[in-house]
């Protein structure tokens, strides 16, 4: 206990001195010397520990092709040899989550949700998000925010950390946490605006069609409106999305870009993007249906069906989506399309079986369930289908 108290006092002294820490931190792009400051090193170390925990958590999508593609886009956005000079990781990991979020750690590791990837339309829009996020790293926003927090509330922070150390938790460890949490929960509005503006320059330097910057945010705006999302991380502490769109419009205007002619001159790489992303769209649709984000799921399905107009899985999921909204007749139509496009596709038969069972058409239900099990003998829900078939048998005996 005495040791813990002593630790607490040490941290107090440290923080009081930290209270005078300089906020004059040069950006990586403008700093003459590529050297991390002491508190910044601790921040990075804490980030690496957190990243290891995320890697173990099972939430990362295992898709090397996609990860390589995303990391390639990111590394192209990082100017010159800053990556090597500062030891920035320059890696992007995808989190299996249909909510709209992306965040960068100070060491240049970016996490992006499947929900973002599945809703964006092309590489230029993706680059908009990555450029914004990597600007937080390049401009050392976590360190700035950390020192800003300490300067503005050194006294209260001191008290909190002392309390933490007395309870036996590592006070030093939580110092780092104060810094990197801003990477996830958002930075101040001025730093977010800076990330938008400087990220925009990175897009220009890489020849992306800058008209897509505002389109990316218009997509998110539509999703927020459709699903009545009150505060997704990516926007909750960022400037209001309308302001951000307006800001991008201003930036585009300043560059005097002509939307009709410039779209031809500058790249958006839609084809490449969709080809790599498309296999994850249906996975994300499932996640969206799970949490009742029906309009967003439908928009993704429509886009997917444009690319793969004969996808039975997409039609089946469309049926599930409509069934969840009690649109029975429409759902049946989609299930039929799933079977028409691939008669051996099993899941639509199960859906028809359940519908027939509920409508007390037990012969039809039996027929569909049998077809389902014939096509998918090791289905995860095989026991439930056998359970329903037993019920049908009982009813047949009664008749």
């Amino acid at each position, binding site marked *: 206990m005495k040791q813990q108290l002593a630790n607490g006092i040490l941290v107090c002294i440290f923080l009081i001195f930290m209270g005078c820490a300089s906020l004059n931190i040069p950006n990586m792009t403008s700093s003459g010397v590529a050297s991390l400051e002491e508190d910044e090193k601790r921040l990075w170390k804490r980030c690496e520990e957190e990243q290891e925990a995320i890697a173990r958590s*099972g939430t990362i999508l295992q898709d090397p092709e996609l990860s390589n593609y995303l990391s390639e886009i990111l590394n192209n956005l990082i100017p010159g040899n800053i990556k090597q000079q500062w030891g920035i990781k320059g890696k992007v990991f995808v989190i299996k989550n249909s909510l709209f979020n992306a965040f960068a750690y100070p060491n240049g590791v970016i996490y992006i949700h499947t929900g973002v990837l599945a809703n964006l339309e092309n590489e230029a829009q993706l680059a908009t998000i990555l450029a914004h996020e990597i600007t937080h790293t390049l401009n050392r926003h976590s360190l700035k925010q950390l020192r800003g927090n300490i300067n503005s509330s050194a006294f209260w922070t001191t008290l909190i950390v002392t309390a933490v150390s007395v309870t036996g938790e590592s006070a030093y460890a939580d110092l780092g946490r104060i810094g990197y949490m801003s990477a996830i929960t958002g930075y101040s509005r001025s730093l977010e605006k800076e990330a938008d503006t400087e990220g925009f320059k990175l897009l220009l330097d890489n020849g992306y069609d800058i008209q897509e910057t505002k389109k990316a945010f218009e997509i998110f705006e539509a999703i927020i409106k459709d699903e009545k999302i009150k505060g997704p991380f990516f926007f909750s502490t960022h400037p209001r999305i309308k302001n951000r769109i307006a800001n991008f419009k201003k930036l585009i205007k300043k560059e005097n870009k002509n939307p009709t002619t410039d779209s031809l001159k500058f790249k958006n790489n839609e084809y490449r993007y969709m080809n790599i992303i498309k296999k994850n769209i249906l996975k994300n649709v499932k996640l969206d249906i799970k949490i009742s984000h029906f309009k967003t799921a439908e928009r993704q399905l429509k886009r997917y069906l444009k690319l793969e107009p004969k996808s039975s899985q997409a039609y089946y999921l469309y049926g599930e989506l409509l069934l969840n909204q009690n649109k029975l007749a429409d759902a049946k139509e989609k299930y039929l399309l799933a079977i028409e496009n691939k008669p051996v596709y099993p899941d639509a038969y199960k859906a028809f079986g359940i519908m027939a*069972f509920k409508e007390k058409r037990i012969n039809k239900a039996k027929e569909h369930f049998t077809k389902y099990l014939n096509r998918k003998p090791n289905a995860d829900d095989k*026991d*439930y289908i056998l*359970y329903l078939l037993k019920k049908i048998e009982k009813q047949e005996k009664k008749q």
Partner: protein
Amino acid sequence: MKGKLIFLVLFICIFLSGCAQWIYVEQGKFWKNRNFSVSLPEGWKRAGFNAPNNLLFLTNDGFLLEYIQISQLKMDKKLSKTKKKISDNMLLPEISRLIADEISQEEFRKNFKILSNIPTSIDTKDCFKINYSFHYKTNYKIKGILYGFVLKRKIYLIAYEAGERYYFDKYLPIFEKFIANLEILS
């Protein structure tokens, strides 16, 4: 599920105020309400305070290590995570999938995995049984079993969750005995 969180918050509040009520379960002790009767595991502790939707909460070493809980959900009420309702015409496989989706969406359950989801019965009542695992705060692995069935327009859930290492296997026979002894009265 929301009920469980409220229950935990309530528990902490009561515990901190120094009024925590844990009732030591003596040999041959039964718990009974209008719908159920069950003999309680001897030597365990039963929460002596009520929380919304929680009917019975038992632990031996502490609720972060293992617990058994009976809770209830009203039908036609939106579930907090999936925003979906369980309706009268839903079949057992549909209900089980919806409940599995709901618990998988709780933020504290990281790396949630369904190990199995099968139909079974408790005291002749058809029910589902979901075996699952997850990480609590990324490093503490927990395994769980959840039974559920519909009775009088309510969903009853009987959960057993315990740390995967040591606790889950240790108390699994007690939970199985608990389920085997559970009588549905109505």
